[in-house]
């Protein structure tokens, strides 16, 4: 059975799972990792990993200003803003 350190994974993923939800998530993850462990049966020695299906390098464009950021329009989506700033709880006391 896979060794799942759920509190560690939750810290990395910024999720808070407790009680029954944590138990279910751990059980599911164990089954999922057991399933993906089928990969280990395939010999991949010397195989180059494939990150992009067309194998192409990222395209570059000329270094020119092509759009202006419309701060007001984007900040209209935010849960809390003030004077053009995003508001979050105080970080430094």
């Amino acid at each position, binding site marked *: 059975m896979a060794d*799942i350190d*759920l509190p*560690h*994974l*939750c810290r*990395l*993923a*910024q*999720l*808070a*799972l407790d009680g029954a*939800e944590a138990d*279910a*998530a751990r059980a*599911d*993850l164990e*089954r*999922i*990792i*057991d*399933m*993906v*462990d*089928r*990969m*280990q049966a*395939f010999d*991949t020695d010397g*195989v*180059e*990993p*494939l*990150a*992009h*299906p*067309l194998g192409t390098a*990222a*395209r570059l*464009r000329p270094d020119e200003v092509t759009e202006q950021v*419309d701060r007001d*329009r*984007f900040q*209209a*989506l*935010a*849960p*809390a803003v003030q004077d053009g700033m*995003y508001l*979050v*709880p105080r*970080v430094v006391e």
Partner: protein
Amino acid sequence: MQPFTPLAELARGLRDREFSSRELTRSFLDRIRDHSATLNCFITVDEDRALAQADAADQRLAEGSATALTGIPIAHKDVFCTAGQRTTCGSRMLANFQAPYDATAVARLDAAGAVTLGKTNMDEFAMGSSNENSHFGPVANPWDPARVPGGSSGGSAAAVAAGLTPLATGTDTGGSIRQPAAFCGVTGIKPTYGRVSRYGMVAFASSLDQGGVFAASAAEAAVALAVMSGFDPLDSTSADQVDPWLNGLGDSHLAAPAEAPVIGLPRQYFEGLQDGGAALEDARRTLEEAGCRFVDVDLPHTDAAIPAYYIIAGAEASTNLSRYDGVRFGHRCENPRSLEDLYRRSRTEGFGAEVKRRILTGTYALSVGYFDAYYLKAQKLRRLIQNDFLAAFGSVDLILAPTTPGTAFPQGDLTDDPVAMYQQDIFTTPASLAGLPAMSVPCGFADGLPLGLQLIGPHFGERAVLETAALYQQHTDWHTRHPEAYA
């Protein structure tokens, strides 16, 4: 207005002024209203917006500047951003999200004059094979409301199957167009990775996500695909692929292939099928009588596809979904005690169980000590899976396979077993990992429920895929069957 009227007839009726786009749009909006309670295929329907678009289309039709899609109603999977209409992605996280811009695919369809009826229901963040993971409730299969429509584009597939829209967009990361197309008895195409711009498509797994379309036939899907596809400088992975054939499709009928293709049958895809492979065998015979030649091909790494897919898709999802932090947009928890608490509670409240599972799977695969054994291993297997296809396409033009192991399953059957749910994607994930164009076409029934066949082509081989599907549909009438309750 009759539902299920062929697209070409709708376009002709609009051009000849037999009916207006407003009348056509109104008739589909009425059908959506009549069936929304049972099917739940739409998350948002904005009648005023649709009718305003229809009026603009009528204006264009009167001026003689119409395209093949001007005035034709379409529905968009709620993963595509639409300015001025909310884009939820099936998630509580984005339940009130108003995108500040249109997805390129939407903008292109709008520019062609298509009329947006609304936004269709989907598995949250496109993660699922049953449409049971939506914050807005499950979608019912029009052939049997107790069964799932497939996922993640379940709302789009069900809407086309029930005649609530002639066309609907979808996205396919590991089968999310093809599997619901098969379960709902409609035609659906996932183009080559990079063919349709991902700009404005809410990201799930960026190296796999690809937009496509559902329609009643290959010919109709091709008309919409021609408009949606093409290079887009706003998507850094958009393919700079000029294809005069595709762009010139318009409303002309898809021709049969100039030369009947040689089609490969991968034996790995024919084991354990619900109907014992009978529907596929009939399809093979039909295509053979139409001139196609069949040979066996070997895709030996097929069994590695599901594990490799769930590692790669999970890893990319855990990265992509890190943007949902409750700060700039999306759900924010009440009264956060600290920045950390804001992040954690906003994400925990905003995401559903399956999305959390995928994020945790991806986080596991990318974490120190597991990266090589899982993520890198999956990427190597992805190379071997792609190599299998490239080798097969050395001797065949296309590959014929089932889309799914069986018909639509009852709602609730697999919800407690994510691993069993993932196995549903066994025949669709390989083409996704390889970035190949693939489509699902109705090919028969088992116990009164539709079955789909899958045609897979080489990169940018949509022409052979679509033309062969059209050839098959000239010789069969499975794609013209409709669920009784909606006929």
